[in-house]
């Protein structure tokens, strides 16, 4: 538990990080640093996107797998690191 916290703190201390969400494989947020409404919204939407991205990658090459997904938007950047059971969502404000 403490390790998880420590890791999150490390990530949070990076410049520009707005929020971190850990979501389980079903898309239910497990841990978050944002408020509930945003968390739930991000989790639901991004979960679908990750599933789609992952299936796309695997369809093209079954040996392949998705390791990282970055969505760059005008206002911020959403980074998603998927894994077997969970995935981690980090929202960062890039310094312009």
């Amino acid at each position, binding site marked *: *538990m403490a*390790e*998880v916290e420590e*890791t*999150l703190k*490390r*990530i949070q201390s*990076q*410049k*520009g*990080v707005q929020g971190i969400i*850990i979501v*389980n494989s*079903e*898309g*239910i*947020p*497990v*841990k978050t640093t944002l408020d509930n409404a945003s968390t*739930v919204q991000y*989790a*639901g939407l991004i979960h679908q996107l990750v599933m789609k991205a992952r299936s796309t990658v695997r369809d093209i090459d079954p040996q392949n797998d998705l*390791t*990282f997904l*970055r969505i*760059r938007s005008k206002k911020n*950047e959403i*980074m998603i*690191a998927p*894994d*077997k*059971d*969970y*995935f*981690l969502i*980090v929202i*960062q404000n*890039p*310094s*312009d």
Partner: protein
Amino acid sequence: MPPKRSKSVTSSAGSKKKGKNTESPAQGEKLGHPEDILPMVLTSATQELFGCRADEDVTGESPYKLLKKDDLIQDLKTRAAVSDFSPAKQIVLNYPEDELLLVFDRDFTYDQLFYLVLTPEAKARILNPPQPEAPEVCENEVHKTGRSEPKPWISLGSEQEIEEESFKESREKLWYKFSRVRRKFGAPVCFSESNIDAYMECVPFQDSRFRIKQMQRDFGMQAVPRMQSSSSQTQWKFKRNIFTRYTPRELSDGDKENIHQCENLKHFCNSVTPRVLQALQQEEIMNVFFDDWKALGTAGDDADWSGKVSEGLMLYQAFTDQKYTKDKKISSINWHPTIYGVLAVALTEKKKEEEAMDESSAVEFRASHIVFYSFSDPSNPQLLLECPDDIYAFEFCPSDPNIIVGGCVNGQVVLWDISAHVIHLQGTQPGKKYSLNADTFDLDDNKENKTPVVRYCAVSALESSHKAPITDVQWLPPTFEVTKLGLPVENKNNVSVQVVTCSPDCALMFWDVRVTKLLSQSGSDRKQNADQKTSYGVPETFKHLDRTWKPLFKVSLPKIDTGGEYAPLKFSLELYTCNANTGRTKEEANENDDGSKVVPDYSQLRVPSAKTLATLEDFNTKLYIGTEDGEIIYTDWKLVKDDSGRQQSAKPLHCFRTHHWLVNTVQRSPFYKDIILTMGSWNFAIWKEGVMEGPIVTSPCSEQVCTAGCWSPSRPAVFFIGKDDGSIEVWNLLEKTGEPLQVHAHITDAKITCIKAWTASSKQHFLAVTDDLGMVRVLEIPKTLYAPFKSETLSVKKYFKLEEDRLKDFMKRDELWAKQKKEAEKLKKKMDPVKPVKSLTENDEENMKEYNVHLEQEESVLKGLGLWTAPADTEDT
């Protein structure tokens, strides 16, 4: 022989009753129960014996019990007279079959608890209801489910009425046949006379029976509803959900805890973290999506690579008119806000000094005009506005470009309405020469020769105007207006209705162009007369103001530390654009504008009562004023109550003598609402509102007097200055802050009086320059000067902030130095409390000694160089 017990007919089998023969009801009336059943009482012992205990073996649902005949006979033998079955003894003995039916009659239909069915036929009938009945029953039941159950008709006496009303034959119809004897058919007829008294006459007579009219007649009617059943069904072709409602799935706290403890999560975090950190750091290092190449230069983007990029201001057109502009100088110029290529200049007399002194000499009075030029016709003015006197400043109304307000040299404010001639102006756009109808073609020649002259609609009352020439006039923006006390309130009309003027008679006046309440009563009388135009063809828009126009209120400018007042020349106020206080957002205000571009009828607008309008609380009522002496004042126009309780203008907040002479420009930057450019005498200054220490940028003094200046409307860092010698300087704050970027000398030979920049279209930016000789030159601004850089606004803002910080820092340091100096002096005094004051002569001697030493040194050096020449005259002391 116990009699057979008959089975009871339960109430649910009511339909069975119908199928039954008519014997039972008839017999039921006689005996109280049908013939083939026998009600009996069974004691509890008998009940137990035969296994037909009430409510246990036999119930309401299964009331039938088959009893063996042998058992019954046995019971009869054993118990003889005591047996319950004794009344039916004979029947039991005679019963042909083996089993008898005993029925438990819960409802006491036949007065006893049990019945014995006597005949096998009845038993069969009861136990096995006849088959043909079943489908009927089914049918009946089916019908019953569809409609309500048809019940037999019960006579309530209505058939008697029908009997009375109906017409029935009471006897058989009679018929008679009359005919002649057969043998007389065809026989010749023999007519003869006969006695008339032997005949029977049947005279028609009125039978009284038939005279009575039946007024009322009963007759039966029956309304039959016309029913029609029909059905409809829509086709739901594409089944899909229109709305869904959902809630997100969330884990309960317990679940979350479980997961947190789980090793899995830890592993996951450990494995994923390096990737994430790397990605995050990448972002920090550099922005991969930023196109450096593109951002490098926007100037050379779509410039002509043929090399014809013009760097400087090119002359586009020059306007002059021999008739009207001879010997006049231009005091003010304005571009028409909506019509392309039209500008207006105000011409004033060039008073030579001698003439001005000599007032008795008959100065040739020529009417003063504001002349409208159009790009299509450089040598002929398109429209002339007649002025009562020379105009030094004029402005187009921002919400209605047909209304022009001007300030006269005698202090009056003048209004024009050119709506009648706008079409003429618009028709003179380059390329649209033949806008007039073919009908009036004959009159064309005459018309074109004569430029239309518009007379002014209204002038202000002479006694309440300024006492000195009006040097600056501005419309208040359509977003707010001002009450009599100077409080800013919301403007419900959304059009500009108020004007501010300033003049060196030390006053700023606020004017309202609408009808005031006092005039409205007399205005209604005047309205009837006002239908016909005046003899000069002047439009009626401002008739209510003519000659009686008084200012709303007056702001005086008392000096800060001394007595007296400042003499303002130019001013600039903050243009308030957001109506946040009133709840109306800018979008709404814009919607209102876009919906109906109805130009309001100024003659119909009334000054609303001050109480009905909401005061704008956070409004900035301060303005910057440039004075005759070169001071820039920052003051508040709201009237405050002073000690004596009267409304007075407040003292200015600060005043700086930045310029040495007349201030000729005070202009707000079109990009930042708190940056103001002021120009006067030999330098210019940039101010930021809110910074009280002074201007954030001051330019070094130039050789020529700056006479006119304006910001570029498209680039926040560029502005133009016109000089006394007819040259124009282009300054770019981002490139060089100490000197102009470009100097275009000799644009004109005379002093530049006015300079105004305008964005006519996205590719055409013009700079209008006017001079002392009455010429107007329109220069085209090259792309390098009007195309802003990508982040220019931001850069310039940063630059201003930097300057502001520098200024503040400088002030602080100044204080610091002053303090330090004081302390140093104190220290010095302490150190040498008594220092002999050198006398003057001693000082002189010292000086001479030093001088002699210097001379010797010089001699020796020059001798060394071999250049020593004996001095022509030496002053030997």
